[in-house]
Structures are given as C-alpha cells and as structure tokens.
C-alpha cells in the first residue's frame, strides 16, 4: 500500500481513503441491504413463490416443491428422468459425461434394458431420449409428453385404470410452451403422480 501514497499526487491524497470507504459502503448496500430488501419485497408480494412453490396432495400434506423433481421407484407411477444424485435436492448437478465417454453409453444401455424389462409392450424405438438421459440439474421436474404417454400401458396394467383415463390425466397436466412460443411442451411428473395417486385411491 506504500506505492499508492507515493504515486498519488497531492490532489488525490484521499484515493486510498476513498477506496476503503467506497468498498465498505458498497459491501453494505449491495451485499446486505439489496438482498434483505429483496427478501422483504418478495415475501410480501409473492410469499408462496418466494418459499419454493411447495405442493400439497389431496389431504393437504406437503409432498415437495412443484419445481423440484423426485425419484419414483414404484412402477405404477410415472417415472422421471435419470438423476445421478437420485433427486437429492440438498445438492444439484449431473455426472458430466462427455459425448465420447464410455460410461455414458454403459449407463444409457442399462437404462434401456431396465425399460424393456418393465415395459415389454412398448418397442424401444418409441422410447424418447429424455427418459434415458441425465438432466443438467439432476432435479428436472419434467418429462416430454411422449415420455409420459408411453408409460401409460405399464401403469394401466398395474393400476387397473383405463388407458383413456390416463391419457386424459396426461393431457390435463401437459404444460404448453411459455407464451405459446418459448421452450418445450412438458409434463410435471410430481404433479401428474399426485393426481394419479388421488385417482388410484
């Protein structure tokens, strides 16, 4: 810091003092006041969104967040995408397999094999790629509409619900593109399963 005072001409003698004061002041404004004011405003205006968009089932029990995917082991429920972190939302991420990584092929081939075993009635050329790939976050709450529809034969067989009922359920839970343009059509697996569970009961 000696250099500073030497190179500063008398006019700028307060350069170091201004630097220190501006740093501390903006640490308080940007690092404390801004996020606290944001939290206050967000909690006041959109309390449900600000607290994680929690989702309740038919009996009013909180079953998760509508934004965060869950793993579904029960084959009579719709299944989501592959998650290397098993949908543990204390963390996030994927295993970052590069396109030429042999582990990527191994994992995908295992997923396809498992799919075949659980869904003998559906040929694999109808199996959409989103069901056998790891999402970026490991927490993707969605699957494509096609990925929901091809699970209907299995779920129908296991639950006794007719295909038509299940198709309607999927249609009801299909979210369109945002503003009819942006992103993709999709189905929220947790919301779909919550509705399915209510129906099944």
């Amino acid at each position: 810091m000696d250099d500073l005072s030497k190179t500063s001409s008398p006019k700028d003698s307060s350069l170091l003092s201004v630097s220190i004061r501006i740093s501390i002041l903006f640490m308080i404004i940007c690092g404390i006041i801004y996020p606290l004011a944001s939290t206050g405003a967000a909690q006041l205006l959109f309390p449900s969104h600000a607290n994680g968009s929690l989702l309740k089932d038919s009996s009013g029990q909180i079953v998760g967040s509508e934004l965060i995917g869950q793993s579904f082991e029960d084959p009579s429920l719709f299944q989501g995408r592959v998650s290397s972190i098993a949908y543990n939302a204390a963390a996030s991420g994927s295993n970052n397999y590069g396109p030429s990584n042999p582990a990527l092929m191994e994992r995908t081939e295992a997923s396809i094999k498992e799919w075949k075993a659980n869904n003998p009635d559906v040929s694999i050329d109808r199996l959409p790629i989103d069901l056998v790939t790891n999402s970026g976050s490991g927490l993707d709450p969605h699957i494509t509409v096609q990925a929901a529809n091809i699970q209907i034969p299995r779920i129908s067989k296991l639950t006794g619900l007719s295909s038509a009922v299940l198709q309607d359920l999927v249609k009801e839970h299909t979210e369109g593109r945002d503003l009819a343009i942006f992103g993709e059509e999709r189905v929220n697996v947790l919301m779909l399963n919550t509705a399915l569970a209510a129906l099944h009961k």
Partner: protein
Amino acid sequence: MDILQLVIVIAVLILLVKPLGTYVYQVFANEPSRLDRLYGGTERLIFRMIGLKQRAGMSWKVYALSFVATNIILVVLSYIILSLQFALPLNPNAIGGMEPTLTFNTVISFMTNTNLQHYSGESSLSYLSQMAVIMMMMFTSAATGFSVAIAFIRGVTGKGKSVGNFFEDFVKANTRIFLPVSFVIMLVLVALQVPQTLDPTLTVKTLEGAVQQIAIGPVASLEAIKHLGTNGGGFFGANSAHPFENPSPLTNVIEILSMWALPAALPYTFGLFAKNKKQGWVIFSAMMCLFLVFLTVAFASEKVGNPAMNALGIDAAQGSMEGKEVRFGIAQSALFTTVTAAATTGSVNNMHDTLTPLGGMVPLAEMMLNVVFGGKGVGIINMLMYAILAVFICGLMVGRTPEFLQRKIEPREMKLIAIAILTHPIIILIPTAIAFMTDAGQGAISNAGYHGISQVLYEFTSSAANNGSGFEGLSDNTPFWNISTGLVMLLGRYVSMIVMLAVAGSLMEKQPVPETLGTFRTDNKLFTVLLIGTVLLIGALTFLPTVVLGPVAEYLTLR
C-alpha cells in the same frame, strides 16, 4: 417453432440496443440530465459518505490505480468473510469455513467478474457469504468493468487528459443501472417462481414417503445481478439448469436478455460518445454476425445429437438431451450457451461438458475470441482493440499512416495492443500445457481421450476470458487448479484493462487529423467485414491447433 423462438429473442435484443445504449450514455456523459433529479439525492449522500468532494477528472494512470485499489480492498474483506463464515451470522445450515486455496480462487473469481466456481453454493457457502461476498462482488466487479469500458471509450473519443473519475463512474453504474434494474428483475423472477428466502434447507416427505432435502435461499436477488452483471456464478451447483434458479422457458429468456442487453448496447453508447452512430452500429454488426454463426453451429450440432446415442435405437429426434432440461429443450439451451459464452457470463442452463463436440466448441471458441459482445465492458474494449488492429493492418497494406477516429495509430499504441492480444493466448496455452505435463493437472480429467483435452483447455480459456463456465466434470477443487486458474483470472482481467486504458490515454493526447477524401473510413460495411476478418485471422492463428486436438478430433472420432 425452434427457429422462431430464437429469432424472437434476437429481435427483442436488437430493439433494446438503442434505448439502453442511450440510457447508458446519459448516465456516463456527465452532462446534466433528467436522471440527476431521480438519482442525484442518493448519489450526493454517497459521495459525501465516501469523501468524494470534487469528483475531479483522472488521468488514465490514476483511474487504473483507483480501480485496482478498490478491487484489492474488496478482495481482502471478502477473504476474511469466507474464512470466518462459520462464526458469522446468517448461517442457518451451519456451513464451515472455506479452505484457503479455494477461498483464494473464489474471491479472485468473483472480483474479476469470472465466477468460476470450484465449490457448490448450496453446501459451501453461508447465506451471509452468498450475500455480502458473492452478490456484493457481482455488483462491484460489474461496475468496475463497466466503468473501465466507459473510461476507455472516453479516451478513444475524447480529448485532453481526463478519462473521468473512477469513483463517480462506479457509484453511478450501481445507483443508476445495476441496483434498480436488478431489483426489478428480481421481482419479476420471484413472480415467475424463483425463491427468495432466508429460511434454511427444506425437508419434505415425498409422494412415495421418502425424505427429500431441498436447498433454498435468497436465490432471485442473486440470479438478477448474476446475469445483469454478466457474472454467472450460480446459487446452486447446477447454476441456471437448477429449477429454482431458472424455473421456466420464460425465466430463461429473461435471464438471456439480462446478460446480453448491456454488452450489446455498449457499441451504441460508443457511437454516441464518438458522435458517429454508424461507427457504433458497425461494431455491433461485426459482433452480431459472429454471434449468428456460433448460434447456428451450436443449435444444429445439438439438434443432430450424439451419433453414439442415436445409434441405440431409441427415439432421439429431440436431439442431445444429456445434461439438458426438458423445459428448455434444444433451442433454449443452445441459445443460452451461445449467449453466456458471448457475454462471458458463464452461467449455464445445460451442462457444457455434455455438449456434442461441435456444440461444446462454440462456447470455447467464443471465449478464445473474447469479442462477441463480451463481458461487462470488456467486450467493447476488445472489439475496439481489434478495430485499431484492423486499421493498422489495412494502413500498412495501402501504405498510409493508420488512423482511427481521426487519431494517428503509432508504435506506442501498437506495442500496447500487441501486449494485450498476446496475453490472452499465453495465459491459456501455457497453463494448459503445464496441466497436461503434471499429475496434479492430468488427475482432474474425468472424460478420457480428446474430450479430456477440451476439459482442460476449456477451464483455462474460461478463466482467461473471465467467463467462469466449465466442463464441470473436471475435478478442479484442488490446490493446483485453485491457484493456477486464480492467477490466470487475475492476469486475464487486469493486464488487458490496464493496457487498454494506457492506449486510451495515449490516443487522447494526440492532435486530431482532419478527415479528407483519402481517409480510410471505419464506419461502413467494408470495415465490418475487415473487422470480422481480423478477429477470425488472429483467433485462428492462435488457437486452431488446440481446437483441432480437442473438440474437432472428438467430433471426427465419435461414431
């Protein structure tokens, strides 16, 4: 529909350039304007508190000294907070202190606007650290970069000795741009379901009766400045792929535009300073042309997908979905990737490590060129540097003294520019080579073969370009990577900024050369083409061999 949604976002961006560029000009022109009435009171209070009475103009040297001094103080304060976070308040998840080399890497990373993250936010940072260090540096590093860019523009377009007062610019960048706009974006994001709370991690009972932990926190306030300031560091490890950071395609578009709009508007601001709007549009067009080429490659490559996966007999018509989110699909993912590397934000809404070889080459190449819009302030400086270089090369070819904006370009400026241009490849290629030669470097590679070369190359390119995204499979939280990338980020940020301020200072003192019929024009289509050519020529000469070894080789061998 895919193409249409890309075109709409680009069209909205182009519509934003003029109003936003004009606004930025009014903020920094230091002429009386209507804005003074709105912000003047607050700013006078701030100026009084920091002891800035005269707001006297600074020479480029004092300006450089001021921003370096301020950055050093912020780094020291942040280092202390991160090291002691376990003992400080706002730590509901009881997170411990940070390891020293990781702390070093983190404070450098955020001060240099890089936001390379060798930690995962949800498990390594207390809420106080997320706020007082991460969010704070997102504002202050963006304001620093923006101020330096404005000072550079003043130097290139003005006369005399003063490039402005750093502290005044820094305050105004925050009070008139980053703070108010971030607050509005934050509210919009919360309205679209991004959380904003100080409650600790949630524990819920899932539909199947299992226990699920859900990390949460003040996400929206970070998300807003993360993009507006082209910072890119995520609240969560998965960054903008995480459904809490980026819950829908609409938030995705908002995040894309917030990181893209200011860098895209700066060429227009430059045109206003130069009193030649066409000159601004020429720079903008060069950036946009390069951008469109990159976007096309990224989109096409991801849509075609990974040939190895396509050969498995499944329905792969969606494209390469590994590492991507269903709500974004290929179009919104490819656009985000191309913009985040262009604006050197470094946030990701899909995992870049999982991109197809040519898709992954796009962000890599954009960061190597470092001029396609570019990060907060730095992009316009770099593009103008190439403009001066283009003028110089053309001047030599026709045997005239090169001029840019009526100033003669002479050996002193060219020497400085040579330093700036050479620094970038040196701090990428030499550390990459060192990493390959050492066990500490090689050990981090998680994808073998050509892709491993890309992983290492990407890490240093991202550090040097102050981008911060990564091929995240790389196990980079080790002393070797923390220290090496930390140094690369430091050099990548400050060398070019200081050198280019020196160029501006030197151009400023020259006598303007009157324009004649023989003057080589820099505000027409021909110059746009020459500028793009210069950028590609220098980029290809420097980086082509490494790009061939990494992504191109992977592309050619992937079946």
